[in-house]
Structures are given as C-alpha cells and as structure tokens.
C-alpha cells in the first residue's frame, strides 16, 4: 500500500508534473493496453525514461540494504551491525570509484561488488579472532570505514571529474544517475544475494541462541558467516556502485521491525525488504522535491529522518 502510494507520487511529481491518468496511460501502453489517457511524448519520456528506472532502483537498493542489515544484525547478534558502519560501504565505494573511471555505471557496479566482497572478506578475517566480542568487529569497521573513505577521496580527486562522480555522491548517495542500464546491471547481483540471504533465515534463527549452541545444533557457523558476509558484500557493493553510500537504511529498518515481527528471521527479512524499499523511495522523493529545482543527496534525507527515529526507538526500548 505504502509502496503503491510512493510509486504513484514518484512517477507523477517533479520538475514536470504528470497527471495520474497519464502515468497510468504510459504504464498501460508499455504492457500493450490502450487504456487511460493518451500520454504526451514528454510525459512518456519523463515517466518511463527517467522516473520509472529511478523508482525501481530506489526500491531495489532500499530492499537490499534493509535485507543486508537484518542479516548482519542476526549474524553478529548485534543491533549495530550495519553494512556501512562495518566498513563494507566505504570499501565498496573505492572499487566503485575506480570502476566508474574505467567503465561508467557498469564499471562502478562491477567495481563496487568486487571491492564490497573483498571488504567483507577482510571483516570476516578480523571477526574470526573476535567471535566472542561483536563490539570489536563494529569498532574495527568504523575505523576501517573512515580510512577507506579517505581512499575514496584519493581516487575521486585524482580521477577525471567528467567520468567519476564527485565525493558527495559516494558519501551521501544519490539516485540522480538512475538509468535502465544501471538498474539492469545492479538487479542481478541484488536478486542472487537476496535469495542466498533469505534462504538462510532459519539458520539465523538458530544462531540467535549463540554460536556455541548453534554449532551443537549442527550449523557450521563459520561457513554461514563467510557465505553471508560475501553475499552482503556483493549486495552492498552493487548498491554503492549504482547510488553511492546511503546511510541508516540497513541500521534502522531491521532495528525498527524487530519489535514488530518478533524473532523469526523469515518475517523480519521479508518485512525489511518491503520497508527498506519504501524508505529509500520515499526519501528519494523528498530529496527530489524538497528544495526543487535543486536536488539534495538522498543520504541526507535518510540520515535526517533515520537519526531521530533511531534515537526514539532506543529510548523506547530502554523504558520497556
């Protein structure tokens, strides 16, 4: 329901407003139906050529970030486990920046995936020694992330400004460059990793008992960790290559939902997919429309909304 309302608003509003029946007209003609209002050429270009891929990419990125956050929080048994706090996002951004210099948006996504997987692997190595203390993994990730962002800057400032997006794109994220091509390149990575992560929901339920007992119940915890961290690295890498680092989605969405869905990871992860999609699409709508005609980075919106909401949830949990 929320997703539909957001979709309608995202397709209708903007620099050029397209009436609702024309939006439906565009969509109907794309599936071969001659229904609703006959859209103008301009409406068709705006709705189908610009807004539709942007909306779908926002949905895909949000869904993936929400899912990854839920998986990492379950895997590390820690509410602070977030792909960007762990350093995966900043690490992926280095590869994506290098990739974009070499091969545009497709290069950025491929580079982001490769670097995301490598960063996840590095975190896996660090966490092997710190299995008892997830806080240490988080702290390492925060330090790692700060250092890695410096290297993103190094790549950005030495590269050709015309081909590599500016620093603010990598730090704050933006869906401005969303094209069908970007969506088509990213969606494969996002789908495959999503299947792997959803398939592990039952294992995460058992890991919630603690690593020792999960092992006694027959789960190869080390293997599950490795596979899921790599999946998370690839998924986050694809999102970073496509839209930069969007903060707070992976942290906030599963954290907020856990109290509603209960401890079942299947419910949590499915809800995180839907809520993450809605959050990013709605935030992008605000980013586009708030200061029109100037667009603000979508990461500013997610952080501006996400920060206070996170604090509110924290204070409420403390009272309970």
């Amino acid at each position, binding site marked *: 329901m929320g997703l539909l309302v957001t979709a309608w608003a995202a397709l209708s509003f903007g620099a050029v407003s397209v009436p609702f029946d024309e939006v439906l007209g565009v969509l109907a003609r794309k599936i071969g139906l001659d229904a609703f209002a006959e859209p103008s050429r301009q409406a068709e270009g705006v709705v189908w050529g610009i807004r539709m891929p942007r909306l779908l990419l926002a949905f895909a990125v949000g869904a993936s970030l929400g899912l990854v956050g839920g998986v990492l929080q379950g895997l590390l048994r820690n509410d602070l486990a977030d792909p960007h706090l762990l350093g995966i996002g900043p690490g992926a951004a280095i590869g994506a920046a290098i990739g974009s210099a070499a091969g545009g948006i497709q290069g950025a996504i491929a580079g982001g995936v490769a670097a995301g997987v490598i960063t996840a692997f590095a975190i896996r190595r660090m966490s092997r020694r710190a299995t008892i203390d997830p806080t240490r993994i988080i702290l390492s990730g925060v330090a790692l992330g700060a250092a890695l962002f410096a290297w993103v800057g190094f790549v950005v400032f030495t590269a050709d400004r015309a081909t590599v997006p500016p620093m603010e794109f990598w730090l704050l994220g933006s869906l401005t460059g969303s094209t069908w091509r970007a969506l088509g390149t990213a969606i494969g990575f996002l789908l495959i990793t999503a299947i792997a992560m959803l398939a592990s929901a039952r294992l995460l*339920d*058992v890991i919630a008992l603690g690593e*020792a007992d999960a092992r006694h119940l*027959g*789960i190869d915890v080390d293997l599950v960790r490795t596979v899921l961290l790599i999946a998370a690295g690839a998924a986050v890498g694809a999102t970073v290559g496509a839209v930069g680092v969007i903060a707070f989605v992976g942290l906030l969405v599963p954290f907020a939902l856990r109290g509603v869905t209960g*401890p079942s990871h299947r419910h949590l992860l499915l809800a995180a997919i839907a809520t993450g999609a809605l959050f990013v699409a709605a935030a992008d709508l605000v980013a586009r429309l708030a200061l029109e005609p100037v667009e603000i980075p979508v990461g500013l919106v997610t952080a501006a909304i996400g920060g206070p909401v996170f604090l509110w949830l924290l204070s409420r949990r403390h009272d309970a």
Partner: protein
Amino acid sequence: MPEPAVAATSLTYRVGDATLVSNVDFAAARGELVAVIGPNGAGKSTLLNLLAGDLQPSEGQVVLDSVDIVDALPGDLALVRSMLTQRTPVDIPYTAAQVVNMGRFPHRRDQTNSAERDSAAVAEAMDRTDTSRFAGRVYATLSGGERTRVSLARVFAQKTPIVFLDEPTTALDVAHQERIMGETVRLSREQRAVVVVLHDLNAAAVHADRIVLMNQSEVVAGGRPREVLQEALLSEVYAQRMVVVDHPFRDCPLVLAADGSP
C-alpha cells in the same frame, strides 16, 4: 565389550604456552553416566569441549559412535551428540518453548521424523525439566536456574545417543538439582552415553556410574565412585582437608570438607 560411544585417545589442547588438557584418554559407553570432577581450572570444561567437537585438539583423536569427529559434518554430528554449555547468552529473544523446539532443528533432514515426533519430544523434554509452566515466557526474563533448565530441555529434545552436560545443576535449587540429576541418570538408562561435569562431589557420588577426576590438565583417577572418592586423593587435589564417610541411607560415599589443612 561393545565399542564405547565416546572414545578419546591422547587428547592434548594447548593455547599459547598453556596446556589446558594434557594427554587424556577418555571413554564412555552407552548406558553409562560418567561424571568429570576436579577443582576450578583443572580442564574439565575444555575436555568436554574437545569431546563435543567445539575445540580442535592439538594432539589426539575423538571418536563418537565410531566416527572420527574431524570427518563428521556439523549436521551429522548434531544427530549424534548434544551439549549443554555454561556460556549460553542471556539475551535470547525466544520463549522457553521456542528454545526447546530448537533442539529438533538437527532432525529436519531426517526422513523418518515428523511434526508429531517433534512436538512429543519437546513436550517430554519440558516435562522432565519442569519447564512447561513457563513455556510461553521469554527466555531473557527467566531466572538463572530456569534458563539452565530450559537449555537442558533443549538438549533433551535433541535426543542424541551421546549427551554432554557442563555443570547442569550449578544454578539450581536443591529440589531441581535432585530432579535434574535423576533425569540425567534416566537418560543414561535409555542407552545413551552421558558425560557430565559436576562441582558437587556428592551428586557425582550418588548418581555417577563412573567418576573421572581431573587436576592440572590431567586425569589423575578414574573408576567407580568408591574407588575415586578417597580422602587422601581428594585432600591433595583440592588442597583442602576432605573426609569421606558412608552415606547414611544411600549405598555410596559421602564427601565432606573438614577444618584444617590437608
């Protein structure tokens, strides 16, 4: 003599310069309750972790039900042995019944298993540990003793031929200590090999078929309770004067700490 269900040979476990378990041979047969006793830091828990496959021995080998555990897949191992640890986290989000139900997780691939058998095993395990009364309460809100019993019920529900229990009675009141030890004996009488680490020497004296006494990473004595629970040996190992008398109404020794140095 049938092959023992648990058979470990020359187990040694080192971390850095410290040797936590040194050259230990250990065996337990189906139908047998073996208690491992010894002072703090003797290596009891480490031995149990080695037997359960949680730790890789620096030297030696562990065979459970004729399979070298190095070769066993985690999922297969979980159908052979279950384990109660002392390290269970307290922030588990599940209800007591959900935790116990996790004990059935290893059986999900067993073709002969069924939902009816799962729920029967869970109900039986909760009954035996006296945990049915708070089946619907969230684990994190239970007392320490209640949590131990819920974890124990999860182990019971797993229904493995080999059971390892690390101090199952430490957090329990006296009535529940008796009940849990009684159920532990019953487990072994169902043709399971049960290995239990105990601090309560008299619980070991009353309930164990065999006692293994550890001190400073080594096994220093093993045998029937009367053979192991000797005044001189216990006084030396615990560095505390110990007196052993006949239990007033049970056919076993009774161990008492006494005044004075060993």
